[in-house]
């Protein structure tokens, strides 16, 4: 009898320990993702410059958004974050979108070397809603958006006696006539995507899966969560050719229905997955020759452009997230060099201009590293609830042709990032 009790006790303890171990492991695996459906999607880099005012070629971004749920309509509540900088009032063209002071000459100044007015960083957001029917894929140009009438399924109701006739199922007036009834159908009714607020535009798109039946609107924490997938296709035209850079939107999966501040989305490993503690970027060092160019002489070299955004944002107070990105750069000799740089709302820069203005002297330069490829580990460091973790994407230019790819990631961020919704 005693032995039986001891065995039972041991088994019980073992089961408790096993449950604990498994339970403890699960949160550690919850990271952001770029290849799974999720409840929050982030497109770190959206570029629009259809007149090539700032880019070397006319550019637009095609946004792709899909619902993988096979039975119910999903709603995405989205925010365009405008990270454009603008010339100050002292400039010849105050308010003009700029990349740096050289784009903002003072009135009457024609010399390219200045003097210049300042180029003031900015941050603002606009939000909109998209309803996506089961299994539906959607796409739109960032520069033009998608007007309500242009959605593929704009009608909330169709007449039972005239299936081609749209109607309003919430109206008390029967517009179908005869014995017809206005039947509710899965639709994009209530959706509208505005164009980016400026052209040129550089910034971020974030979408949060909302419950379409919730009043007031609230993030979807039900069983049909994690139904959104997305991608971006940045297209540059050099008639008659096209250059494409594609990446998957970064997803944050919903984990548990947690009673929290209704206006907040917490990336804490309990309600939503946490952001990674380290982003891993594998790249060809800047200024290296194209390793696949058979003809060699035509090679103009390789550069990689990195975009980073903070995981958290306060859309209510219009307070962008910010953090410091620490970079550890390894070459093939296992040599390690490091640098750091502030990420304030939105960071986009050629790798070899992160630590210096002279590309060939950078720790990201082939001239300095001496090997073709490197591994850069990026760690976000910040104290605010909007700036612990980072998300990002890389675009590499090889002989004038670009590729986009998602960063890889490792480890959970110990801090909690919060997205505050108006």
């Amino acid at each position, binding site marked *: 009898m005693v032995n039986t009790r001891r065995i039972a006790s041991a088994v*019980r303890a073992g*089961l408790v320990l*096993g*449950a604990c171990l*498994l*339970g403890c*492991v*699960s949160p550690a*695996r919850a*990271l952001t993702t*770029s*290849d*799974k*459906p999720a409840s929050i999607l982030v497109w770190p880099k959206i570029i629009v410059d259809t007149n090539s005012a700032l880019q070397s070629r006319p550019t637009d971004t*095609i946004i792709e958004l*899909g619902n*993988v749920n096979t039975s119910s309509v999903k709603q995405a509540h989205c925010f365009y974050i405008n990270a454009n900088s603008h010339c100050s009032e002292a400039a010849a063209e105050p308010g003009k979108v700029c990349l740096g002071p050289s784009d903002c000459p003072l009135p009457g100044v024609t010399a390219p070397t200045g003097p210049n007015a300042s180029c003031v960083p900015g941050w603002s957001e606009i939000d909109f809603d998209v309803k996506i*029917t*089961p*299994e*539906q*894929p959607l796409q739109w140009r960032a*520069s033009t958006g998608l007007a309500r009438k242009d959605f*593929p*399924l704009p009608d909330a109701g169709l007449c039972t006696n005239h299936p081609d006739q749209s109607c309003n199922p919430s109206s008390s007036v029967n517009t179908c006539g005869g014995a017809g009834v206005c039947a509710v159908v*899965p639709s994009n009714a209530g959706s509208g995507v505005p164009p980016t607020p400026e052209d040129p535009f550089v910034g971020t798109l974030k979408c949060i899966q909302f419950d379409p039946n919730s009043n007031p609107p609230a993030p979807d924490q039900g069983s049909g969560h994690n139904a959104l*997938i997305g*991608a971006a296709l940045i*297209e540059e*035209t050099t008639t*008659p*050719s*096209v250059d*494409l850079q*594609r990446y*998957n939107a970064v997803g944050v999966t919903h984990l548990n229905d947690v009673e929290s501040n209704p206006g907040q989305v917490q990336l804490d490993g309990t309600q939503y997955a946490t952001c990674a503690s380290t982003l*891993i970027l*594998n790249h060809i060092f800047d200024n290296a020759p*194209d*390793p*696949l*160019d*058979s*003809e060699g002489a035509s090679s103009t070299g390789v550069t990689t452009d990195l975009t980073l955004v903070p995981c958290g944002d306060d859309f209510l107070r219009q307070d962008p997230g910010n953090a410091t990105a620490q970079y550890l750069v*390894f070459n*093939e000799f*296992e040599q390690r060099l490091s640098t750091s740089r502030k990420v304030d709302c939105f960071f986009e820069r050629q790798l070899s201009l992160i630590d210096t203005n002279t590309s060939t002297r950078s720790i990201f330069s082939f001239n300095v590293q001496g*090997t073709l*490829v490197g*591994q850069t*580990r990026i760690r976000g460091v910040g104290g605010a609830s909007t700036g612990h973790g980072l998300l990002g994407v890389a675009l590499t230019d*090889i*002989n004038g*042709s*670009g*590729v*986009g790819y*998602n960063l*890889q990631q*490792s480890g959970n961020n110990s801090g909690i990032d919060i997205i505050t919704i108006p």
Partner: protein
Amino acid sequence: MGVSKRNPWLSGLGVLLAVLVVSGGLARADVTSDTPGSIVIFPKVIADGTRDTLIQLTNTSNTSTSAHCWYFDATNNCQPNDFSVDLTAQQPIYWRVSTGRSTGDASGGNFLGNVPKRINFQGELKCVQVDGSDAPTMGNSLKGEALLETVGTSDTIATGQVSEYNAIAIQAIANPVPHCLNNPGVVCATDGDCPSGDLCSITLSLDDHTYNACPRDLVITHYAEGASDIYTGATVHNELTLVPCTEDIEHDRPTDPNTSVPVVAQFRVVNEAEFGPLSGAIPFTCWLNIGLDDVRLGGIYDHNTAGTFVKTRIPTDPGVPGVGLLGVLEEFHTLSGGKAGTAAADLHMVGDRPGPPGGDTITLPQTTGSK
């Protein structure tokens, strides 16, 4: 009449089992393209004179490790060809598929390995993290990228167009244990530990117990075939590459088409107006690389049928072993008279295929682990 009495210990056991099941479900991590793993798969590798591929492989840990890799040549029934590379702590390495790379080469790196060159090659590359004895190990520290570039000047796509995708990584949960090939319940160290005539073999079980299981469905949004790009007006062509999760390298399956059991890639297509699903299916044994205008798909992707923009779902039956799939999509946008713009994308992965009864396996040749 007897009255059954509730046993509190059993009730507690039930609760704990439920917790175990739930926690276990949460604890599983899926196959991914954005985290390091112990098996790294490059579904699309081309070195055929028109296109070439740059492979990047990186050790993300602070200790040195090794990778045992196999090229599967789809131009030759996926004949495997293996090699090994060693990586120091945090080391990134690369090689060009058409030229290979060897220790002590003149490219300025610290490369430790002997990667054979592949010419007229189309197929898959798979690398398994191994320890110093060449035995598979659960380091979960390998990641990779493939850069596809069109080379030369006389090709149809034109020079300089590039695509890149992240290699697909499968994380290990436990170290795989060798067992007798025909007696799976018998653990072994050498052939002598197995019944007469049987071989001691290493099977990597992608079952959520030893390694993470492959996805149940693959999903991606993309243009329909022949559709016009909504910004550039370019005509779009898509190329989808799929590889099976299950591979029996020990028995030369799928190398031998006579003994290989084909997997069936099923396609379910829904367009923006929720038209569909249109469906098609193509069986294959080791490597499927098709344009989505392939006649076997019966025109389901034709823009005249499917519209401009679609979502493809490639489902598998999670209860059937050995039918898991992985893949990448590459799209080509062409304007009249211009060179094509290309971009590759990792497919989204939905659900998983735990085993048994489902799951997938990679059976390594007997020489693995015998260094």
